């Protein structure tokens, strides 16, 4: 499904500040895998997602998605297969367009069978309303409101819907609930789990909440220094506690986890 081989990327090449962020990173995901990714700040979690989505091109290594080599494919072309959510809820939607117009754009990902001069039909609007209703946030009555008028939680839920309106091959979630208030965080997390399970989407989720990382999905990667230093499978995730995770981290890296932002749960 997704195969990464020897991914390497460094920034500020050729200067004194050169920093290698991913070093020789390899892993493979099976169809339907839901992987949570944890690690300290600067361990390369977000960079990994940026490389997978095509925001950054890797210096070397190979990315195979669905048996297609996408290593050098530009971001907008990969977007047909990859959906993505960021921490900033404002990043995934266009504030001056309406709810319906934003959804219509997301619908474009469904591949090129839309005529460029086609308009949003009544049937489209009905479909959008149905899907919005499933979010249970009252958005189905606000199709013609500008997205800029919605709350952060509503916008993030909409972004989630937009990323999965046409189920992507791969969904990348970069701490997508971290900037929301506790109530919205709960809501968006539940929705994420529901939508991912319903459509059986392969998913990589970066989080700093260790307990959530253990509770969610069927695999967990621990990253440090641009590598995956250990991985947990479904069985281990069920039995291990956050304390056990910290012990595993010390064993694998020879030091304690810097826990400035990581929630120990």
């Amino acid at each position: 499904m997704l195969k990464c081989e020897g991914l390497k990327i460094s920034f500020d090449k050729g200067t004194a500040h050169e920093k290698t962020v991913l070093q020789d990173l390899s892993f493979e995901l099976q169809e339907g895998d839901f992987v949570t990714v944890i690690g300290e700040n600067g361990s390369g979690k977000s960079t990994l997602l940026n490389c997978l989505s095509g925001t950054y091109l890797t210096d070397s290594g190979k990315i195979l998605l669905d048996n297609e080599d996408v290593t050098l494919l530009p971001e907008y072309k990969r977007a047909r297969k990859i959906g993505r959510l960021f921490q900033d809820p404002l990043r995934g939607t266009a504030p001056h367009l309406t709810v319906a117009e934003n959804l219509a754009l997301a619908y474009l990902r469904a591949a090129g069978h839309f005529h460029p001069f086609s308009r949003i039909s009544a049937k489209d609007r009905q479909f959008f309303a149905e899907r919005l209703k499933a979010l249970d946030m009252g958005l189905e009555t606000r199709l013609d409101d500008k997205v800029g008028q919605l709350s952060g939680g509503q916008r993030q839920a909409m972004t989630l819907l937009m990323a999965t309106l046409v189920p992507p091959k791969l969904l990348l979630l970069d701490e997508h609930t971290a900037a929301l208030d506790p109530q919205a965080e709960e809501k968006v997390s539940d929705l994420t789990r529901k939508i991912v399970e319903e459509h059986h989407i392969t998913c990589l989720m970066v989080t700093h909440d260790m307990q959530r990382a253990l509770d969610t999905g069927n695999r967990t990667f621990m990253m440090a220094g641009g590598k995956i230093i250990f991985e947990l499978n479904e069985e281990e995730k069920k039995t291990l506690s956050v304390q056990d995770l910290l012990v595993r981290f010390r064993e694998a890296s020879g030091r304690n986890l810097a826990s400035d932002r990581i929630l120990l749960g």
Partner: protein
Amino acid sequence: MLYILETALRLGLFYAPIPLALFLSYRILNIADLTTDGSFVLGMAVSVSIAALGHPFLGMLLGMAAGALAGSVTALLQTRGGVPSILAGIITNTGLYTVNLAVMGFSSNKSLLKQETVFSLLKKLIPGEHYEILIGLFLIALLCLFLRFFLSTRLGLSLRATGDNIAMIRSSSVDPDRMILIGLCISNSFTALAGALVAQMQRSADINAGSGIVTVGLACLIIGETLLGKRSLTRNILAAVTGSLFYRLLYALILKTRVVPVECLRLLTAVIVAAAIVIPYLQEQAAVRRRREC
């Protein structure tokens, strides 16, 4: 007085494609497109040169096509060549000076003497003396309808989102570079159309006729938005046209009454545009300062 109104209406309509073009490039795509001055003259030059050969309608169309081509140069410079967008416009504009001279046969102006123009031909079909205004009205209505329709198509939506949130448009699998190319081609063909119309109306093209026209266009846009507000797409489009009419009315009144010396009009225009952008910014800053003092 009636004559002033008529002149203002006529010029307002013929110049209206420019604020419409700037609405597309500046408001929708968020690009200050400085190709505008050059593509206006390009439209003039092509339209007059082709009309001189006896094809006034073809001159209009080729003028628009030439404008679109100029827009594509600016777009490609910034999307494929890594040139900052303002500089891309300036570079194209500089190059267009020579191109425009060449189109006019390396002369700084070109006039139509007895050749037919779009207006002299249509005059035979349209009764009454207001045929120029009717032609203008018809064309501007057509442009407005096109813009309104286009911007609510899926392609138009992608264009609007490119200016609104470029990260989002990339993750919607739309190539923003292509959107900028399409947007600037359309906007510059509009600008060139204004040049083509004005040139055939006054039966001449002049190499310097475009200087500062981008600022005038922005002033029209801002005046229109102040008068009509910018709550919906339809309103935004109508505002661009209204602004153009109002600006030309103001211009005609100042010419007539000489409250402000005509030589100062450019300065006044520049002040209007600068003030319209600076004042809201200063208000924001003042609000922050007040909060700091609390």
